[in-house]
Structure formats: C-alpha cells, structure tokens
C-alpha cells in the first residue's frame, strides 16, 4: 500500500501572543474567555502588545492581568476608568483600556464611567454584561432582567421594589465626550466576529485620539444562571438581546470615517 504524502503542518489557529499560556479560572461555558481572546487578538493584529496597559476591575475578571501578556494594573471596585484616566494622562501615547463587568461599571462605578466618558477620556472600555454579580455568587446586578432570578431576587427581579435594569451603553452615548459606543454579543460565531470588529474599532478610535470608546459585550454566566453553557448562550440570544439591543449607540462623525 502506498504511503500517502503528508502535508507539512500548517498552523491555522494559535494562541495570540498577547494571551499568556495559562489556564484561566473562569467557569466552563463562561464567555469571559472569548472576550479575553478577542481583545488579545486585536492587540496582536494592531501590533500594540508592547505599548498597552490594561486596567482590571473587581469581579470575575479581577485576575485578567494573569491572562494577558502586557502591562496591567488592578483597580478598586468601579474605579477602573479613574485609574485609566490617571495612567493615560501621564502616558498619553500608551494604549489604555479597562475591562469591567456590569456590577463594576453600571452600579458602584457609575460616576467614574460617566465622567470618563463626559471628559472624552481617550481610553477604551470593554464592558462585560452578564446580568449578575458573578464573582460573589450571582446576586442581582443593575443589568439583571425584570423577572430574572438571582440570589438576591429569589422570585425574580421585581421592578416595583428593585427597580429597572440600566442600559449603560445607551446612557453613555448621550454624552458628547463619547466617540464610539456599541453593544455586541458573544452568543454565536457570527456575533463573536462582529464583537471582534467592534473591539478593533474601539482601539482604532483611541489610537487616533478621538475620545472615549466602549464595547459592551452581552455575556453568559452558566454557573450563576443555573443553565448549561448551551442554554446560557440561548438565553443571551433570546432574553438578553431583547432587553439590551445590539446596536451602535454612538459613532461620531470622526469615527465614522475610520475604515478597518
């Protein structure tokens, strides 16, 4: 029998240089890993690895600095945009981004994110919205959907007593300092590609000095939602996107000129 000739191995998929070769602490099925990878791929593709400073927040992504292979600091809860401001103002030619969850950004850190956007702070924000406080075990967040069960809304979020969720992207898009604010989702390959494109755009906005940029990423939390990873993605697609529409909320005229 003739031995078939073997093609030399061709690498079609590998770990981004900006992504360290370590296991993450994220739960199976959690989309933090996807979001991390997208950021790492974009940083690599733009050749920014050695001029980027990340700001980790408090929440499940508190240890993000263990996974990215570039400089990082870790912020108090909600204060990442303030820390990023401090860094960017003394090192204006570095690329500075925060990576924040919804409890961090849309609850305890509303003042910091709002004023960073209002100042047109030339930073990029990656905003993970999974509708609950994941790190502390699934409590109600400012983004928890009406009727959604959490450990502090056992019968489902009752808007009469617990108020309504905050759509942070829409809120921040009203500010003149915001240059680029969009919401994407990580529930399927098509949307993941769209998310990556948005992240790329956000960093391009910063590189051009056009002002505040933020990409909100609808994300899954199988552990705290009590769903399988697959059902979690379905929940994102059906329930989350219904309340948090995927859209471009702010693309100012200068940003609209950017072609990537």
């Amino acid at each position, binding site marked *: 029998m003739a031995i078939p000739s073997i093609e030399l191995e061709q690498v079609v998929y590998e770990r981004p240089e900006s992504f360290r070769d370590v296991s993450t602490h994220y739960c199976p099925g959690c989309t933090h890993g996807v979001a991390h990878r997208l950021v790492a791929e974009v940083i690599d593709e733009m050749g920014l690895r050695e*001029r980027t400073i990340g700001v980790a927040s408090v929440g499940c992504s508190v240890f993000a600095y263990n996974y990215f292979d570039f400089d990082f600091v870790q912020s108090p809860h909600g204060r990442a945009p303030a*820390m990023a401001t*401090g860094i960017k103002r*003394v*090192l204006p030619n570095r690329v500075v981004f925060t990576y924040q969850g919804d409890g961090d950004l849309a609850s305890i850190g509303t003042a910091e994110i709002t004023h960073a956007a209002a100042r047109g702070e030339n930073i990029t924000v990656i905003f993970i919205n999974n509708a609950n406080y994941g790190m502390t075990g699934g409590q109600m967040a400012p983004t928890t959907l009406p009727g959604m069960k959490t450990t502090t809304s056992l019968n489902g979020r009752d808007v009469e007593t617990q108020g309504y969720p905050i759509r942070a992207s829409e809120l921040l898009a009203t500010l003149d300092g915001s240059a680029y604010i969009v919401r994407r989702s990580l529930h399927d390959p098509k949307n993941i590609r769209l998310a990556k494109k948005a992240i790329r755009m956000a960093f391009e906005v910063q590189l051009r000095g056009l002002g505040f940029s933020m990409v909100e990423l609808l994300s899954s939390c199988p552990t705290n939602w009590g769903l399988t990873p697959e059902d979690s993605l379905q929940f994102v697609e059906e329930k989350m996107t219904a309340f948090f529409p995927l859209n471009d909320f702010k693309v100012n005229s200068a940003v609209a000129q950017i072609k990537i």
Partner: protein
Amino acid sequence: MARELWKGNEAIAEAAVRAGLQAYFGYPITPQTELLEYLSWRMPELKRAFVQAESELGAINMVYGAACTGARVMTSSSSPGISLMLEGISYIAGTEVPMVLVDVMRGGPGLGNIAPAQADYNQIVHGGGHGDYHPIVLAPSSVQESIDLTSLAFDLAEKYRSIAVVLTDGSLGQMMEPAEMPEMMPVKQVYPEWAVTGEPGRDRRFLTSINLNPVEQEKTNIRLSLRWQQVQANEVRFKEYYLDDAKFVVLGFGSSGRIALSAVRAARAEGIPVGLLRPITVNPFPTAVIEELGKHVDGMLVVEMNAGQMLEDVRLSTRNRVPIEFYGRMGGVMPLPDEVLSAIHGLVDGPRTTEGHPRDRWLARLAKNN
C-alpha cells in the same frame, strides 16, 4: 531666592510643582480649594497632567493609576473629602506605590465647618482605610514649613514606596506669610523597576493589591511592617524649643504647636522653666525622644485642636510615668495663647498625677468653667 508672600495652600501647590509633580487630580473642598485652583492653571502651563475629578473617589483613583506608572503624583482635600479617599488610600498602600496627599483639616465630624481643626489625626496617622498600613505624616506649622515638607514628602514617598501626607489645617492653608520657594527641580526621567509603563522590550509588569492566598498576603503585610520599622528608625523629625533646662514640656503639632510656642515664650517671660516639643513627623512619632524627656521633666501638657488624639501617643511614649495634662479646642475653634498659658499654669501649680486620664480632667474643667 527671595522671600515672597505666599498663601499656605498655594505655597504647597507651587512647592509640589518645583518638586517635580507630574500629575495632580483633585476635587473642590474648602479650605483646600486654592491648591486645586492654583494647579488648574500651573500644571497645564508646564504641560503636566491636571484633572478636576468627579469626586474625591475619582481623584484618588486617578492618583492611583498615575502612581502605578512611577510618576510623581499628588492629590489634596480636606477632612470629609479625605474620608471618601480612604478606600483608594488603602489600595495605594497595599500596592506599594508612592503618592503625596495633602489634608487641610477642618472642623468635624460630619460636614462640620470650614474652620481649622486637627481632629483627623487618628484618621490619618492611625489608619482610616482598611488593613495594616502606615503613611508617613508630616505636620507643618508655617507656610515655609509647608513648602519644605511638601518637597520632603515626595522624596520620602518614593524612598519607601509609601504614602506621604502633608497634614495641615484651614488656618495654615489660608494664611499668608513670607516664605522662600526652592529651585525648580527637573521632572524625573528614571523610573523604578516596578513601574507599569507599557514599554517595549521587557517582560510584562503588573501592580495589584489582591492576593487570595492568605500566606502570600501575609508576606505583603510583613514587608510593609518591616519597611515601617525602617521609617521609624530613620525618619523621625521634631523641633525642640527651650528644652535644655525645662522642668515642664508642652507638646503640640502643626498650628497648635505654633500657638503653644507663643504660650511657652510668655511662660518663660514669667520665669517658668517650660519648653516645647513639636513633632514634625507625627508618623513616625517621636516616641523615643518623648520617652527620654519624660525621665527628666516634672510634667507634660499636650495641646491639640481635637479631644486628645496625639495625647494617646504621648501617653504611650511616656508609658504613663510622667504626669500629663491636656488642653484642646474642637469643632473649628483654635486655642488662644493665653488659654494655653493658663493650662501651663495649671500644670505647674498642680496637683500633678499619673493616675486617671488627662482627657477626663480636661473635660471636668470644661464642665466646671461652663
């Protein structure tokens, strides 16, 4: 350089600029606001970073970020604003990045008032934020000393990767005095090996204050404690007045130390052998010198603009072996030299005791006189 008339708050701001301040972040609060106002034009003029933050929380965390890059950074506030900053202060201490904080104390608690006070001694010196940490705390008593100690604060903060506080008050911040500014120092070009600067050609760096492994976190605590021992060994500063032949000693820091000096001079004119010890570093506290003094004097009087906060550190330093009396004014009221002179008379005339608590006797006298 010639002596010029400087307002306390503005003098600190300019002294910081001349010490190579690279970034300032602040928020308005009386009686500190002139610092913010001065730097709002002075920093941009020199192409250095200035941001008026959305709150003291924002300001301290901007400082935190900028401090992580190794830059010389500062913020300033007054009592209620400092309370808001304590979260960030603890993180900065836990991350071991240097920063300078100016606290222009005012009357409290609560919103209180905008008059001078020293009631935040415990908050600043003995923590305030969570966890074991020790800021270096410098207490000026004049505009000139405010300038000199601001320069020193930056050097000490960097030397010990620590927080250095210039602890002043509404009167020192608002008063104008002739003072001499130092020469302008160049902005630093060499950054420490821990600085997160996003530079090419080296391994990644990160700065964090979290460590979920208690044993590892304890190592951070041990390192901070050992470093504090070094500060205690090397950085104690104080000023002595008329102590050579003194049988009685008055102790006060900042404004109350300065007011007490007038009273001590008046008492000397009456022939009373009294001197003054004014701690310049209230942290590290001049414990050893006070303990030694305690062996040679017949009594001590502690004067503060609070209910006896430094008093406890004096009592600890003397191990309660020497009679101590206390005189304080609170809530924004400053003691008058005559009041302190009366308290000196009270100490000299006796009875003097090491029994009971000086604060209790002071409060009893207050009740009797009112």
